[in-house]
């Protein structure tokens, strides 16, 4: 026999929304719509600052231009300086700022919205962290990328692979949400150009 008893589905919200979506007949009073933000929902869009939101948003009208830039950026690049390299990286992953630090912890290039305290501290801490982070998974090979999600912004860094103890850390501040899909491309471009970079 079929069980037609009460079920476990809470369809109150769905019923209320459907009532608001029904075409108006002009005579019947429309039910009061649900509050825009029911308390049980976490509105991530409200959590982000307006500054962050405006940075992430692609401006209307500039979209196809951005597409063109992205397409150009897919071509192999030839860099002779770290400055030109991080400039290209920043435009590709739309980061707010970028820097390069050597394995001694010295900043050798920076670009973009540099914080008042500079990148010295960030760069030095990243260099110190590389060795420790590699201990997390000793059999996983050399550490290539560090991706840190802080509550205000994301900081990511690429560690250039090297046989010796000399390496560079290329840091990016607040790359955009499409960053992950471009990671491999950025990796390849930096590694390909590494022998010529000054």
């Amino acid at each position: 026999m079929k069980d037609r008893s009460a079920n476990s589905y809470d369809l109150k919200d769905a019923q209320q929304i459907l009532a608001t979506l029904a075409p108006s007949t002009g005579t019947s009073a429309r039910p009061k719509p649900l509050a825009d933000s029911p308390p049980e929902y976490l509105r991530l869009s409200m959590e982000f600052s307006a500054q962050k939101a405006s940075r992430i948003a692609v401006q209307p009208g500039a979209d196809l231009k951005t597409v063109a830039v992205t397409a150009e950026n897919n071509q192999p690049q030839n860099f002779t300086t770290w400055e030109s390299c991080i400039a290209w990286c920043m435009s590709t992953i739309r980061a707010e700022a970028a820097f390069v630090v050597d394995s001694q912890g010295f900043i050798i290039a920076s670009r973009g919205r540099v914080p008042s305290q500079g990148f010295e501290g960030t760069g030095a801490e990243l260099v110190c962290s590389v060795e420790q982070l590699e201990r997390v998974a000793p059999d996983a090979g050399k550490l290539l990328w560090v991706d840190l999600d802080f509550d205000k912004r994301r900081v990511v860094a690429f560690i250039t692979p090297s046989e010796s103890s000399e390496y560079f850390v290329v840091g990016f501040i607040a790359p955009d949400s499409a960053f992950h899909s471009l990671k491999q491309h950025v990796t390849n471009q930096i590694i390909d150009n590494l022998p010529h970079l000054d």
Partner: protein
Amino acid sequence: MANIVSIVSSKGGTGKTTVALNLAVALAEGGDRVLLIDADPLGAIGFSLAQSDTEWMGLAECMMKKATLDDTIIQTKLPALSILPRGRLDPLDVAIYEELLASSAALSEIVSAVKEKYRYVIIDTPSGLGQITRAALSVSSYALIPLQAEPLAVRAISQTLRVLQHIKEHENSDLNLLGILATMVQLNKDVSFNIMNTVWASLDGVLETYIPRADIFHVASEKGVPVAFLSGKYPPEAIRFELLATEIKDIIQGLGGVIGEVDERPQRQLI
């Protein structure tokens, strides 16, 4: 003027692509000119028609201005049905594709360019309520929600409706709910039967037509054709989509949409 219908669902696996494809075929077989747009980054329409991932140019190339609409819209062997495929999108670029499609005016421009040429534009969207689904809803006049007759789908229906309500109130006041279409229904199974009882009793807007779970959809998918195009006896599932097309036309007409020529006939004498 075309009726723009987005097929949307927060949950995956509800049969959006199957509904989009077979509904488009049913409408076109009825004589209406139909454009089926594959806005799903997966390119599920192409896969349903057994095409490889890089077979067709489409939406991606149009958006990048690498091809025109005329170059990319495919005229099918069904004269009234055309398809705008997803395009040769690199799977690694899906995140960029989603962001660009949502933030640019590409979809809106495409719809504007074709709406005088077709009676129906069906947009197949990806699962979930992300940027592409919202972009599709923002340019649509109607939304059709496939609801898989199983518990998780019923529990998630409010999510889809909430986004629909938000888009209608804040972005596109012309958007109407066409209906909730129960799919993969198995009335001989207790769970499915109870769910259908629940949704029919509890929710407004559930369409009378429903789509049963049937192996023939897998057979059609394997052969890369809509169910109506399989050889042999005309399948009852294809008739379901004809009924769905008729029901949808009635709803659109009731909502003030244009459905083209109505099948009006003079009174006749039988004897």
